């Protein structure tokens, strides 16, 4: 983009597995990564045996709407599940239960430092099984593990509002932060618990409207790789556009070794999934009152919390945002800070001690007191009275005349003995570094 003739037009599709206790349409345990062996978390429903029927997971629907509300989406009061047909061995029904024209959420937005990214829609569907290609007894075989089959999966689709690779990365990270904060998804990228896709095209600077083509970057499992892939793709497309060449509609992957995108599948013909409403699942209806109630019970969002802490406790936002990932963690910190404030402890210093890992974060509510005590102890260390310390050391040295001699002979282990004596005699928890420095000074005198 040296001459800035073209600008990036990019929309993203992010899939995330919800961490509900059971799968989307059956009672099987939703824990594909923790399963003891393949196909152990399966039943007639997620194996699509003849006669088996799906029943929708209420929690998964509520969580999808929760995310939608947190992203400022509108919620469809009448929604439904549709069958999306395609053939693949990891899809046992021959169709995926998804949502076609009436997703649970639509028209939301997520703010990035590089501009607003509008959310086009969020819908709920089921994940597929996992194919494993192996060699068994010298023969190439493909195996299917259905532990992941039927795990609730949300898809968050943006408008083409992303205009730089950096913004794509920030969008992805912010979205992951929110999903983790709401405690609805672990977003484990390595295991495929969160999957990124970007639709990339370029248009001449100054023009608006969508370009007539796009390439799809798919199966990329880190934000960094996504950023690199978009960067590469922009350069590749720009070269072609300048040369007057046509850019093929295709699905591309990212080769981390060669640092290049590569073609996975050309997309000349639009696929026909033969969507129709799943007759096994009654439509899902909500009243506005139910949605309002869900909105009211939504936890305070991370940016709001950080802002509030700055006002209430003078905690620097850069510290505040580093202290928690989930709403539960933020809740515990809230108790910690208010309790600390009541005890007249400097909350801003407490927060920075937490960020610098001088004391550890409270894991549960009952840890709050201990954290405050740890901080106070840490605080007393900072207040070492050097004159008093020096007097103590001098006294110990005169009580133990051989020590100084030993030290000058090179027996450095006497240091440890002296440190222990100082701590014992003073009866305080002193900063070891300060004690050590003072002892060394006295020994060298």
């Amino acid at each position, binding site marked *: 983009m040296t001459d800035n003739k073209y600008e990036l037009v990019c929309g993203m599709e992010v899939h995330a597995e919800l961490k509900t206790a059971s799968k989307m349409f059956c009672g099987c345990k939703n824990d594909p990564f923790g399963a003891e062996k393949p196909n152990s978390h399966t039943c*007639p429903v997620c194996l*699509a*045996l*003849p*006669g*088996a*029927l*799906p*029943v*929708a997971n209420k929690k998964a629907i509520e969580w999808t709407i929760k995310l939608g509300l947190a992203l400022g989406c509108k919620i469809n009061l009448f929604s439904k599940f549709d*069958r999306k*047909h395609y*053939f693949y*061995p990891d899809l*046992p*029904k*021959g*169709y995926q239960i998804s949502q076609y024209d009436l997703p649970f959420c639509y028209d939301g937005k997520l703010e990035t430092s590089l501009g607003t990214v509008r959310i086009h829609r969020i819908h709920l569907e089921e994940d597929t099984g996992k194919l494993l290609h192996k060699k068994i007894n010298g023969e190439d075989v493909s195996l299917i593990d259905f532990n992941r089959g039927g795990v609730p999966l949300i898809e968050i689709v943006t408008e083409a509002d992303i205009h730089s690779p950096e913004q794509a990365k920030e969008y992805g990270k912010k979205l992951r932060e929110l999903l983790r904060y709401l405690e609805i998804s672990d977003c484990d990228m390595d295991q495929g618990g969160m999957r990124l896709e970007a639709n990339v095209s370029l248009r001449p600077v100054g023009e608006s409207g969508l370009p007539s083509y796009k390439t799809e970057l798919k199966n990329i499992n880190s934000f960094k790789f996504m950023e690199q892939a978009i960067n590469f793709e922009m350069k590749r497309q720009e070269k072609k556009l300048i040369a007057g060449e046509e850019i093929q509609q295709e699905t591309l992957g990212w080769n981390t070794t060669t640092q290049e995108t590569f073609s996975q599948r050309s997309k000349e013909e*639009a696929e*026909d999934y*033969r*969507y*129709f409403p799943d*007759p*096994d*699942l*009654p439509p899902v209806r909500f009243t506005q009152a139910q949605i309002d109630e869900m909105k009211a019970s939504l936890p305070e969002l991370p940016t709001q919390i950080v802002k509030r802490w700055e006002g209430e406790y003078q905690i620097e936002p850069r510290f505040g945002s580093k202290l928690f990932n989930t709403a539960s963690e933020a809740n515990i910190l809230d108790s910690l800070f208010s309790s600390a404030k009541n005890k007249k402890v400097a909350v801003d210093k407490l927060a920075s001690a937490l960020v610098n890992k001088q004391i550890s974060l409270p894991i549960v509510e009952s840890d709050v007191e201990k954290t405050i005590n740890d901080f106070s102890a840490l605080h007393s260390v900072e207040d070492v009275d050097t004159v008093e310390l020096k007097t103590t050391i001098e006294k110990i040295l005169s009580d133990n005349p051989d020590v100084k001699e030993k030290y000058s002979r090179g027996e450095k282990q006497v240091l440890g003995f002296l440190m222990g004596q100082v701590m014992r005699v003073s009866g305080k928890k002193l900063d070891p570094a300060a004690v050590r420095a003072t002892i060394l000074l006295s020994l060298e005198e």
Partner: protein
Amino acid sequence: MLYQEFSTMTDLNKLTLKKAQKLVAEKEVTAAEIQQACIDKIKEVNGKLNIFLSHLDAPVTASEGSLHSLPIAVKDNVCTLDFPTTASSKVLEGYRPPYEASIIRKVKEAGGVILGKTNLDAWAHGSSTETSDFGRTLNPRNPDHLPGGSSGGSAAAVASDTCIIAIGTETAGSIRQPSAWCGVVGLKPTYGRVSRYGIAAMASSTDSPGPIAKTVEDAATLLDIMAGHDPFDATSNPAEHPVFSNSLNKKISGMKVGVLYQDLEGLEEVRPYIDAASKILEDLGAEVEYAQALDPHYAISVYTIAQRAEVSSNLARYTGIRYGNDRSHFGDEAKRRIMLGTHALRKGYADKYYLTAQKVRAKFALDFEELFKKYDVLISASSPTFAQKIGASESSSMFGELADMLQEPSSICGLPGINVPVFRDPETNLFLGLNIVAPAWREDLVIQFGDAYEKATSWNSWRNND
């Protein structure tokens, strides 16, 4: 000495469910003897009639319950642990489900014994039981004729006294039409009244399992056991259902009956007998009149499109990867339906076909809503004709739709209905049936009317056993 009388005077396989329950409860006979009588009868006739695809070889004991280990024949699209489940398709030949249908669990918990699995049109696609991949079933009343379908095996099992009672499934006529052709009682409950869990899906939005029985009373008894909410079927009705056998032996005087479709062409064979049945209901005190409904020909279009679309989707799971037999084992009828359904759902065509069909379906629902403002029940012939000769289904790909035409309007609306036999031709020994339809969730009304009609006539040979 009573026991002696029964084993010599009466064939135990001919007992109605009600009579069998009574005799076993009173220890006059044992369930094992009744099962053995049915097994003996199966061995006698099955080679010729091809009713059962699999069956018990010796009596077994079930858990305690009101069904007292009495033998029940089950359509082979219903998953059972004790027998293979094939839906009469070679694709599933030899398949043994690792789980059983909710209705099978209920029947077993009530003390029922699954006697065997009955033949059907492959995947329940048909109205003849001729399209079974395991050979056609013949009509026990007259083996030159078809039993109807798709629950032809279950209807033939009841008609041939190879069981005490049977279970069928209906999408549009698949219980009532074979019941009519075999001269037995067939009850199709409201869609959602009986769980579909564990039944190989045909058309998911209309599939309804129900009893096929010797008497209306027997059908009501088994429906009481089969019905009710199932957490495994999201479309099953969570509401408590009434005790259906409470609707027996009730007067119908003063109630209103609308007679449908009598003016249609092609009903010549059956029309006089429906008029005669109307007269009997009138004699029982009901107010009967001709009523005008939407032309059922439109229902054929709606049903054909919606059902083919759902079939093409429901059969997508038989990928050839998992059940041993690949997709080349699909019969011609299944292939036809998969192609038609796939076409109807194609991009650009779904609006034209599938969505239009859904709109017309809604029109039918409104039409019935209007009719039920005036009438308690609606009656018509169950089938336009007597049982057709063997081979008839092969001559027309729309054979089933025409045979089921009178059932399709109410079926696409999910309404309950019952077939009760109204006439037996003494020359051919073939039957005609009356179809009684009620508003959704009012199975009690079809039972009340069916029972009243049955008891006002004397032809039901089984009732004489009671």
